[in-house]
C-alpha cells in the first residue's frame, strides 16, 4: 500500500501532466502553433513493492499505456497468480470509455491498461477520472478481499465452525478473516520490533476499545484487544500466533458491508497495520519534540540562576565601590578637607590669571622653575 489515499500521488501527477499536454496541443492545433508531442516512458516505484510503467508515444499522443505490478493478497500457502475475472471487471468499471485492458499484459506486470485521453470529459470531471485511474492499485487489492469474503466457504463440518482464512499481503503481517453466521471477524496479530512501540500501540488499542464501546460510536464495528489469541484462531500454527502486541479483532456486521460502505470497510481493514505503525511513529516524534522543548526550559532555569549571580555580584561591586568612596570621604579629617579646598581655590585663581596657555610650559616649569627641597621628609632627593 503506497499510502492511506487510494490514488497514487505520483501517478496522478504524471497522468495529469500528459493529459494537460494533450489538451493543450488539441487547442493549439487549429492555430498551427501546437507543440511537438512528447514521448513519455516513466517507471514509478512505490512503498509496498508497487511498480508502475507509463508509456506514451509521439505517434499516438492521445493513447497512454499504464502497466501495474502489485503484490496480491494470498491465502496462506495458496498463491494467486494473475487477476481474477471479478478483479478485472472492477478495474473496467473505473471508466469504460477511457480505459481498456490490454491482453496479454506487458512482461513483468500483472495488468496493462490503455488510456484514451481524447475520451476524457473536459473540465472538472477530467480530474475525477484521472484520480480514479490513479487508484487502480487500491481497486485491485480491495476487489480481491471482497471476492474472498463473498465467495469462499470456510465452513468446516468436522469441527462445526468456520475456519479462519489467512490473508497475507505483507510477508510478516498476515491477518485472519473468520466468517460467522451473522458477522465477519477480522483478527490482526500485532508485532513490533521495539518494546516502547508495543506500549504505545497497546495504549492506542485500549483507547480504540473505549471509543468503540461508547454510545456515540455504536454504528462502528466493535473492537477487541487481547494479549492472548482469540478462541477463533485455535488450531492455527504457533509461529503465526506468537506476538508481542496482542490481537486486535473487529466484528464486521452486514451493516458495514452494504453498498458503498463495503469499499470503505475493506480499505480500512487492509490499511489497519499501516495505520497503527504510522500512529506509533508519529507519537514517537511527538515525544521527542516535546522532550527537546522541555530541555530548553530546564536549562534556562539553571542558566538564569548563574546569570542572576553575575548581575548581583556586579551590582554589589559597584555599590561596594561607591560605598567605599563614601566611607573614604567621611573618614577624612576636617583639616585635610580644608587644605584640599584651598588648593583647589589656588588652582582656579592661577587658571584665571594665566589665561594664555603655552603648550608644554607646565612641564618646563615643573622641571626648571621649581625650587629644590634640601630637607626632604623622605631623606633623599628625587632625581629626574
Amino acid at each position, binding site marked *: 500500500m503506497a499510502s492511506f489515499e487510494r490514488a497514487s500521488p505520483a501517478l496522478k501527477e504524471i497522468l495529469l501532466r500528459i493529459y494537460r499536454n494533450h489538451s493543450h496541443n488539441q487547442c493549439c492545433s487549429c492555430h498551427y502553433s501546437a507543440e511537438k508531442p512528447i514521448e513519455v516512458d516513466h517507471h514509478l516505484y512505490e512503498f509496498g513493492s508497487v511498480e508502475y510503467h507509463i508509456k506514451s508515444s509521439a505517434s499516438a499522443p492521445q493513447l497512454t499505456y499504464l502497466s501495474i505490478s502489485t503484490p496480491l493478497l494470498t491465502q496462506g500457502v495458496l498463491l494467486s497468480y494473475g487477476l481474477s475475472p471479478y478483479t478485472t471487471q472492477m478495474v473496467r468499471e473505473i471508466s469504460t470509455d477511457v480505459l481498456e485492458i490490454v491482453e496479454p499484459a506487458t512482461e513483468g506486470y500483472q495488468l496493462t491498461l490503455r488510456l484514451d485521453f481524447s475520451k476524457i470529459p473536459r473540465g472538472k470531471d477530467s480530474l475525477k477520472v484521472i484520480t480514479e485511474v490513479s487508484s487502480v492499485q487500491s481497486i485491485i487489492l480491495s476487489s480481491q478481499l471482497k471476492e474472498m469474503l463473498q465467495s469462499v466457504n470456510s465452513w468446516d463440518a468436522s469441527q462445526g465452525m468456520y475456519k479462519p482464512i489467512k490473508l497475507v499481503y505483507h510477508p510478516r503481517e498476515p491477518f485472519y478473516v473468520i466468517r460467522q453466521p451473522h458477522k465477519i471477524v477480522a483478527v490482526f496479530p500485532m508485532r513490533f520490533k521495539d*518494546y*516502547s512501540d508495543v*506500549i*504505545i500501540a*497497546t*495504549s*492506542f488499542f*485500549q*483507547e*480504540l476499545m*473505549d*471509543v*468503540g464501546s461508547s454510545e456515540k*460510536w455504536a*454504528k*462502528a*464495528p466493535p*473492537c477487541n484487544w487481547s494479549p492472548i489469541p482469540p478462541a477463533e484462531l485455535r488450531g492455527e500454527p504457533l509461529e503465526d500466533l506468537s506476538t508481542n502486541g496482542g490481537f486486535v479483532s473487529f466484528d464486521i456486521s452486514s451493516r*458495514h458491508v452494504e453498498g458503498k*460502505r463495503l469499499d*470503505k*470497510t475493506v*480499505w*480500512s481493514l487492509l490499511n489497519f497495520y499501516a*495505520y497503527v505503525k504510522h*500512529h506509533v511513529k*508519529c*507519537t514517537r516524534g*511527538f*515525544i*521527542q519534540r*516535546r*522532550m527537546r522543548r*522541555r*530541555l530548553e526550559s*530546564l*536549562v534556562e*532555569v*539553571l542558566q538564569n*540562576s*548563574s546569570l*542572576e*549571580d553575575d548581575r548581583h555580584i556586579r551590582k554589589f561591586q559597584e555599590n561596594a565601590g561607591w560605598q567605599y568612596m563614601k566611607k573614604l570621604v567621611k573618614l577624612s579629617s576636617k583639616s585635610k578637607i580644608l587644605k584640599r579646598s584651598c588648593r583647589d581655590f589656588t588652582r582656579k585663581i592661577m587658571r584665571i590669571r594665566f589665561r594664555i596657555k603655552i603648550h608644554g610650559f607646565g612641564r618646563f616649569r615643573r622641571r626648571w622653575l621649581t625650587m629644590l627641597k634640601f630637607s626632604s621628609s623622605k631623606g633623599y632627593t628625587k632625581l629626574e
Partner: protein
Amino acid sequence: MANTLRLYLTCIRNTLEAAMCLQNFPCQEVERHNKPEVELKTSPELLLNPVLICRNEAEKCLIETSINSLRISLKVKQADELENILTKKFLRFLSMRAEAFQVLRRKPVQGYDISFLITNYHCEEMQKQKLIDFIVQFMEDIDKEISELKMSVNTRGRLVATEFLKQFV
C-alpha cells in the same frame, strides 16, 4: 498526596543545605590531580554517611556526600508501563545532554533513574541556594512533565482511534 510531596521535597532541601558544604581538596593518591571523592570512594575518611530519603517504595532520593563533591540520585515514580517508558526515554534524553546542565551525570547510579554530581567548582560558580532550588524544581518538573506526556499520548491515541472508526460510519 500533595502534602507528602511537600514533606518529601522539604526533607531533601534541608538535607542538601546541610550536605552542600564543599571545599577544594586535591587527590591524596595522585599528585596534581583533583577528583570528586564521592565518585572514587578510595578514602573513607573523606566520605560522609549517605542519606536515603524515601517517599514510598517507588520514589526515593540518595544523597552521598564527600569533602569536595556531592552526588544526588533520584528514583522517579512509574505507575504503569507507559510511564515507565516515558520516564526512561525522557531521563535518558536529558542524561545524553548532560553538558547543558553542568551538574547532571551522564549515567545514573545503578538502581536509580537520574543522578547529579555537584563539585566544589560548581559551588564557586553558582549560588548554593540556587543550586538546591534547581534540584528541587527539577524533581517537580520531571513529575509534571511525565504526567503531561502520558496524558498527551493517551489523548492522541483517542483522537486517532476516533478518526479510524469514522471510516466505518
